């Protein structure tokens, strides 16, 4: 057993010190009838590293990796190029195998990195403060709704039709038990900006509204100015929560904070983390300074040590479960520390110039791809403004088309029919994401395959 340093002689010596006749004596408190007397049957024994690598490698090879096909899937998780140095750095044992930094004197590496992360997130989102990460965008979104309830002491959350349906589902799950009221709607592909239901939102805001939740860019790729929505919310003393699924967008377009959103949350996976089949990701969470004591999750703060030297600590922990128990702002404990570090390293490599260049490149490639794909007979681009993701309306159901594209080696996007199984015209919708990783060859291959399939 390569991971277990004790050998039989050690074990004997230690049992002698303990004064136990054998190892079973140490399990004496386990009721004998429940104690297993040997390895569980039907489960294999230990295996060499080589054997495990072979078995897991075989499973890995049963999947089609994004890198092995022209790849256009987004919808809340985006494929970007991550510099090799990011992974190198997060694999440093001192980051990878360290604990939550409750002992700040020997955790300044993690703490300073989190402080830098918070600063980056706050600036990217145009907010005053940010926390040290959440699980992912979807849970950050619910936590924001719950926070709005605490801030406003109201229980109705109005969700935009452009909010990712998984995020809506998470909110509905939780609200079922907390008693919050969730006012949601499904996106309409047939008129106006897709998924932009501002009129509905304006009309729905009332004195019971804790918050309006709007996604930017939204699930269909649409982007629109949030300023008026923010004003309408604030008129009724409700909070505006903006959800940002693609942080790269904010290298090009205005941040929700600048447009006066109160809480901005989102998914950070695009930078540093990678696709990972949906997890682990990293939830970003930022808000106004005045609301910080209602914010969930860990927060790093600056202070000094006994010698007057600058240092960082986890702070405001009276919001947290390990101190406040049932009165905590959230039950979150372990969050996404290493993913936050990866995000922050990638952001540091980019800097403002790099983020802006990256965003411009994404947008330019997306525009070119959208134009090309919309030229395919039977395909129509429904978006007005968008960033790196857009929605196509086909003359037929999108799901079988995607299936046929996959048979031709193209991963062409997400069918709205998968996200919204109830039809109503959405089944013809196809959401396509384009990033800097897509070559012109990819676009050509996609268009050719789509023409063939739609013919």
């Amino acid at each position, binding site marked *: 057993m390569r991971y277990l340093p004790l050998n039989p002689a*050690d074990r004997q010596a230690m049992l002698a010190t303990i004064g136990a006749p054998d190892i079973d004596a140490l399990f004496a408190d386990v009721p004998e009838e429940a104690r297993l007397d040997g390895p569980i049957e039907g489960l294999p024994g230990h295996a060499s590293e080589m054997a495990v690598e072979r078995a897991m490698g075989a499973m890995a090879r049963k*999947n089609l990796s994004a890198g092995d096909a022209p790849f256009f899937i987004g919808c809340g998780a985006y494929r970007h190029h991550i510099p090799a140095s990011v992974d190198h750095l997060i694999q440093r044992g001192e980051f990878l195998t*360290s604990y939550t930094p409750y002992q700040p004197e020997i955790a300044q590496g993690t703490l300073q990195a989190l402080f830098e992360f918070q600063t980056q997130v706050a600036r990217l989102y145009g907010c005053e403060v940010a926390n040290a990460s959440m699980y992912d965008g979807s849970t950050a979104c619910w936590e924001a709704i719950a926070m709005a309830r605490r801030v406003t002491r109201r229980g109705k959350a109005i969700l935009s039709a452009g909010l990712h349906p998984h995020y809506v589902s998470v909110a509905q799950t939780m609200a079922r038990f907390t008693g919050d009221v969730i006012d949601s709607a499904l996106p309409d592909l047939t008129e106006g900006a897709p998924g932009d239901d501002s009129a509905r939102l304006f009309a729905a805001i009332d004195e019971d509204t804790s918050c309006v939740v709007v996604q930017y860019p939204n699930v269909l790729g649409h982007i629109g*100015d949030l300023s008026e929505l923010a004003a309408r919310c604030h008129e009724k003393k409700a909070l505006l929560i903006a959800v940002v699924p693609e942080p790269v967008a904010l290298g090009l*377009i205005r941040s929700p904070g600048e447009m006066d959103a109160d809480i901005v949350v989102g998914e950070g996976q695009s930078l540093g983390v990678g696709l990972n089949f949906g997890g682990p990701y990293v939830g970003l969470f930022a808000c106004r300074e005045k609301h910080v004591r209602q914010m969930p999750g860990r927060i790093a703060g600056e202070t000094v040590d*006994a010698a007057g030297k600058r240092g960082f600590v986890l702070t405001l922990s009276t919001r947290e479960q*390990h101190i406040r128990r049932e009165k905590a702002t959230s039950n979150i404990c372990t969050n996404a520390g290493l993913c936050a570090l990866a995000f922050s390293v990638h952001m540091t490599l980019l800097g403002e110039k790099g983020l802006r260049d990256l965003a411009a490149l994404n947008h330019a490639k997306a525009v070119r791809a959208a134009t090309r794909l919309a030229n395919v007979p039977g395909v129509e681009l429904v978006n007005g403004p968008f960033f790196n993701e857009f929605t196509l309306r086909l003359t037929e159901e999108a799901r079988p088309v995607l299936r046929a594209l996959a048979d031709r080696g193209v991963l062409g996007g997400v069918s709205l029919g998968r996200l919204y199984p109830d039809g109503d015209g959405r089944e013809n919708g196809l959401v396509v994401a384009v990033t800097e990783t897509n070559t012109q060859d990819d676009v050509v291959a996609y268009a050719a395959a789509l023409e063939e399939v739609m013919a």
Partner: protein
Amino acid sequence: IDEPLVFEIGDTDQCGVDFDEAPEGESRIGGLERNRPIGLAGLSEPQTVRHYTRLSRQNYAIDLGLFPLGSCTMKHNPRLDEKIARLPGFADLHPLQPVDTLQGAFEVIYELAVWLMKLTGMYGVAMSPKAGAHGELCGILAIRSALEARGDMREVVLVPESAHGTNPATAAFAGYRVENIPATAEGRVDLEALKARLGPDVAALMITNPNTCGLFEREMKAISDAVHAAGAFVYCDGANFNAIVGKVRPGDLGVDAMHINLHKTFSTPHGGGGPGSGPVVLSEELSAYGPLPFVAKQRDGSFRLIEEENAAEIHPHGFGRMAAFHGQMGMFTRALAYILSHGADGLRQVAEDAVLNANYILRSLEDVLDAPFAASGPCMHEAVFSDAGFAEGLTTLDVAKGLIDEGYHPMTMYFPLVVHGAMLVEPTETESKGTLDTFIGALRSVAERAKAGDESLHAAPVFAPRRRLDETAAARNPVLVWKETEQAEAAE
């Protein structure tokens, strides 16, 4: 040993990434262009590598030494698991790819699920929770769903005094009122007090077993029976499963739901605070209410994904999603690699060695440190000590910080709450006897100083990257982001 902040050494023009040229074309962002600087400092790659390498060296880590954090199970993280998780066939998959391009991914999830169910003796498992606390929430939501399905709207969740903070927080987050159950003097749940409190308003007991005093709840079966008899459910906090994996199955003790912290028992790296992963094993009754999505194996050996579009038919009572997508795939691959490496025999050995190491520490130090439950029988994976016997003015905190100067991360302090000045030491199975002996010597020496009234412990640590940090000032006047003005002041 000071490293400036990125914002102090970088600037907004510096960049460590090169890009291909952007194609020409119109912009379609509808007038939403950024019109103000963002303020993100960048660094070239050499500067970036150096910045984070230097920062990293201010951390303590498992790779550097023993991490005696009771209840946190900081064990060795095999590098094979890191390699496996990075295979493009796992790491470079999108959660919304067509399901037939993901059969290997589903196989990983399914295989891991089978192991978890068999190791715990449970019927089902919800894989998507993102961390232990999220798993607790999932389990409690399943319990609440089951009760609601019975038309039984209970309001209270019982939690022992020694529970992790996440337990009451979770119960509250799920809309329950929390009540505490006392412990006996020997450090276990007071069965009689529990029985007295059980009633038609109690939805569940959240219990930790082995508990946070490091003891196995001997009467677990009786506890479960009492809870069930009252129409309530038993939620077990699986944080300490490492002590019993392969030795006893929680399902055999009447547990209805239990989360498993993959990073604790199955060694996914803690990463300075996550990511974690908290699959929840469930009884047959509760499984009906588990979240979407999940993976099912079909007759032909292929895997199917159960999600919104087919759930109405196959999983009609599920309470919905806990999170977008499928859960922490990166942790699943690591945990499965770990599990396959150990196998059923190795996992059993894990529990035995973890318990052996903890008892070795308990018995090697009980002469110098007060061990409140030393007489309660063998400890499981962790040993608890109290501050009884320390000289006036010297505290558990001083001992913890003194241990830093001896080259160790401190033990868990002031937890469990039922022990005064508690010190909870969990060595795990991946420490050698030699390392334990050295650690025991170090803790003994610090403990002796605390008993002798060595006031110099107040100044500890002195050999760490920082002296004691002022946490009170940090909370009173929170500085949570870097601001340019600060830099200007610092430069003066």
